[in-house]
C-alpha cells in the first residue's frame, strides 16, 4: 500500500475504500519488516495504534472525520505521550513514562491521527547524525552505511522508507530540515512560537520549534494546520490566527521574488549539491518567479553564535535531570551532591555532556560578557540580515546542507566538523523564521535538499513556493530502493 499523499489517503478513508485499521495494520507490518535494519523506532505502540485506528474508523462512519482522521504517523521521541515511554534518545529517560501528552500530540490525536510509535533521535536532540542516541544510530534508507541526519533522524527515515506518510520532528538548529535533505523528503519548521512547546522536552528554549517531516509540502501544510495555534501553557506561544496553509498552496509563482544569497554557495558546498540547487532556481525562473541576489553578510557567524547560545540554554534546561524526581539515578552515591553528579555522569552521553560543559563555561563568572552576551549581539546581526533581505524578496532559496548524507562514523571524532553541517540551517532558528527542505535531485545515489526560508509567521508563502516547485518536478516522489522482501507490499 502506498503511503504518500495524505489528501489521497484521507479521500480513500472517507469513501471507505480502505479503513484506518487496514492502513494501520499494514503500517505495523512494514515497521516489523523494515525497522530491524533502519533502527528508526524506539517504541512501537501497536495496541494503542489499533485502538486509535478503530476509533478513527467509527468517526469516519459517523461522517465526523477531519482531513487527517485515520492517517497513521509517528512522533519523535522528544514529545511526551501519556502512558508511553518517552526517552528523548537518552539513557537518562530510558524508563520515563510520560504522565501527559505534549500539545501537538494532543492536537493531532484530536484530529483523529493515529500514532504508531516514537522515533529514534540524537540524545536530547543534540546531534546532526542520530549517532548520539542511546538507542543506536538510525540508518539512511538510501544507503544503510550512511546517516539519515539528525536530530530527527528516525522521523526522516520512517518517512523516507515509506513506513508512515509523515512524522513529527523538532528543529533547534536544523534538526528537521537537515535530516529531510539527507533522506530525500520534505521537512518543515514553522516560525518560532507557531507550534506549542508544551510537553516537548526542552533543549534550547529560544530556538526549539516543532514541525513535520512528510513526503510533500502539501502534506506538511495539512499537518501543520492541525498542529499550529495558540497554547497558553507555552509562555512563548504566539496568540495569532493560523492562516489556511492548504488554501494558500495554489497561488502561482508568477511575480514572486526569490532571493539567493551568494554566501550559501561558498567553498564548503559540495559541487553536485550546488548544481542541483542552481537547477532548482532555473525551475523557479521557468515558473515565472524572479531570482535576485540578496546578501546575508553575517551568515558565517551563525555556527559560532549557535554553539554558544544553544549549549548555554541546554546547560540550564538539563539541570532538571538530577536523579531525584524522574529519570536515571545512580546507585553508587553516598551523598546528595554525589547523587546529582553520578546520576548525570551515568545518564548522559558524551555529546550531551560536552554541550552542558560548553554552556556552563560560557555562562560562568568572568566569561559571560565575552561569550554569551557577544553571541546574543551576533544573533541580532544575523536576524537583521534576514529582516533586511525580506524587505525585497518573498523567500530565500539555497542548499539545506553542504553535502549529501555522510557515512556513519565519519564525523563523530570531531565535534566542529559535525557542527558545520548546520551552517545553512542555523540562521533560521536564531532569527525564529520558517524554513523548509524539499528534495531537488541527487548527488550520485544520494538525495539533495533545497532550502526555502520565509519571513516570520509567513509559513503560507514558504509552503506555497515549495508546493509549486513540487507540482513542476517529481524529485519528492522518488523512493529509495527497498529490500526485496518489501517490494511485494508496495
Amino acid at each position, binding site marked *: 500500500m502506498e503511503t504518500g499523499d495524505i489528501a489521497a489517503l484521507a479521500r480513500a478513508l472517507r469513501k471507505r475504500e480502505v479503513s484506518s485499521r487496514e492502513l494501520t495494520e499494514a503500517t505495523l507490518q512494514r515497521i516489523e519488516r523494515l525497522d530491524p535494519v533502519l533502527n528508526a523506532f524506539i517504541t512501537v505502540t501497536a495496541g494503542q495504534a489499533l485502538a486509535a485506528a478503530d476509533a478513527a474508523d467509527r468517526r469516519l462512519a459517523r461522517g465526523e472525520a477531519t482531513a487527517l482522521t485515520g492517517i497513521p504517523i509517528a512522533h519523535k521521541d522528544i514529545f511526551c505521550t501519556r502512558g508511553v515511554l518517552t526517552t528523548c534518545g537518552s539513557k537518562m529517560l530510558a524508563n520515563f513514562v510520560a504522565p501527559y501528552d505534549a500539545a501537538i500530540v494532543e492536537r493531532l490525536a484530536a484530529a483523529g491521527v493515529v500514532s504508531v510509535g516514537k522515533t529514534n533521535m540524537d540524545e536530547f536532540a543534540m546531534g546532526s547524525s542520530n549517532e548520539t542516541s542511546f538507542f543506536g544510530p538510525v540508518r539512511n534508507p538510501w544507503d544503510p552505511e550512511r546517516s539519515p541526519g539528525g536530530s530527527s533522524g528516525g522521523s526522516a527515515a520512517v518517512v523516507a522508507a515509506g513506513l508512515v506518510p509523515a512524522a513529527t520532528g523538532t528543529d533547534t538548529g536544523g534538526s528537521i530540515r537537515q535530516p529531510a535533505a539527507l533522506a530525500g523528503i520534505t521537512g518543515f519548521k514553522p516560525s518560532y512560537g507557531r507550534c506549542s512547546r508544551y510537553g516537548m522536552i526542552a533543549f534550547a528554549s529560544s530556538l526549539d520549534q516543532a514541525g513535520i517531516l512528510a513526503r510533500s509540502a502539501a502534506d506538511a501544510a495539512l499537518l501543520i494546520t492541525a498542529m499550529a495555534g495558540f497554547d497558553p501553557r507555552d509562555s512563548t506561544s504566539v496568540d495569532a490566527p493560523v492562516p489556511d496553509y492548504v488554501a494558500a498552496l495554489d497561488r502561482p509563482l508568477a511575480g514572486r521574488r526569490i532571493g539567493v544569497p551568494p554566501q550559501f554557495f561558498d567553498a564548503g558546498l559540495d559541487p553536485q549539491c550546488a548544481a542541483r540547487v542552481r537547477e532548482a532556481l532555473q525551475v523557479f525562473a521557468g515558473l515565472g518567479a524572479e531570482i535576485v541576489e540578496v546578501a546575508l553578510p553575517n551568515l558565517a557567524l551563525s555556527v559560532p553564535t549557535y*554553539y554558544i547560545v544553544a549549549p548555554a540554554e541546554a546547560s540550564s534546561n538539563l539541570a532538571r535531570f538530577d536523579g531525584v524526581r524522574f529519570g536515571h*539515578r545512580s546507585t553508587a552515591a553516598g551523598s546528595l551532591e554525589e547523587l546529582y553528579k553520578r546520576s548525570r555522569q551515568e545518564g548522559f552521553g558524551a555529546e550531551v*555532556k560536552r554541550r552542558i560543559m560548553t554552556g556552563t563555561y560560557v555562562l560562568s563568572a568572568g566569561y559571560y560578557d565575552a561569550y554569551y552576551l557577544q553571541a546574543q549581539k551576533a544573533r541580532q546581526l544575523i536576524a537583521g540580515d534576514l529582516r533586511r533581505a525580506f524587505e525585497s524578496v518573498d523567500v530565500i532559496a539555497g542548499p539545506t546542507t553542504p553535502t549529501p548524507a555522510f557515512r556513519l562514523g565519519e564525523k563523530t571524532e570531531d565535534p566542529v566538523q559535525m557542527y558545520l553541517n548546520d551552517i545553512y540551517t542555523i540562521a533560521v532558528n536564531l532569527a*525564529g523564521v520558517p524554513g523548509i527542505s524539499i528534495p531537488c535531485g541527487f548527488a550520485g545515489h544520494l538525495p539533495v535538499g533545497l532550502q526555502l526560508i520565509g519571513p516570520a509567521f509567513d509559513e503560507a508563502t514558504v509552503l506555497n513556493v515549495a508546493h509549486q516547485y513540487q507540482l513542476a518536478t517529481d524529485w519528492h516522489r522518488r523512493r529509495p530502493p527497498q529490500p526485496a522482501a518489501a517490494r511485494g507490499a508496495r
Partner: protein
Amino acid sequence: MDHIAHLARLALTEAEAGDCVTKLSRILDMVDQLQRVDTAGVEPMAHPLPMVQRLRADKVTEQDHRDEYQRNAPRAEQGLYLVPRVIE
C-alpha cells in the same frame, strides 16, 4: 575543567575529562571567531519574539497529580522523594 564540571554537577572519569579538554578546546577555538566581530551599539537578542510574559488570573488551575508523577521517581515513599541523608 574540574570547576566547570562541578558547576554543572557532572562527575567525569579521567578519560572523559581528557576527551572533554581536547574537544572543548576545538569548540572554543571555533566560537572565538565571534571575538573579532564589531558589535558596538548592537542590542543583544535573547529571543526571536519581542514579547513580554503573559499574566493570568491568580487562580488555581493545576490539579493534584503527585501520585501519578511519583510513579516515575527512582525512590519515593508516602508522597516524598527520597535522597541520601543531607542533615547528620
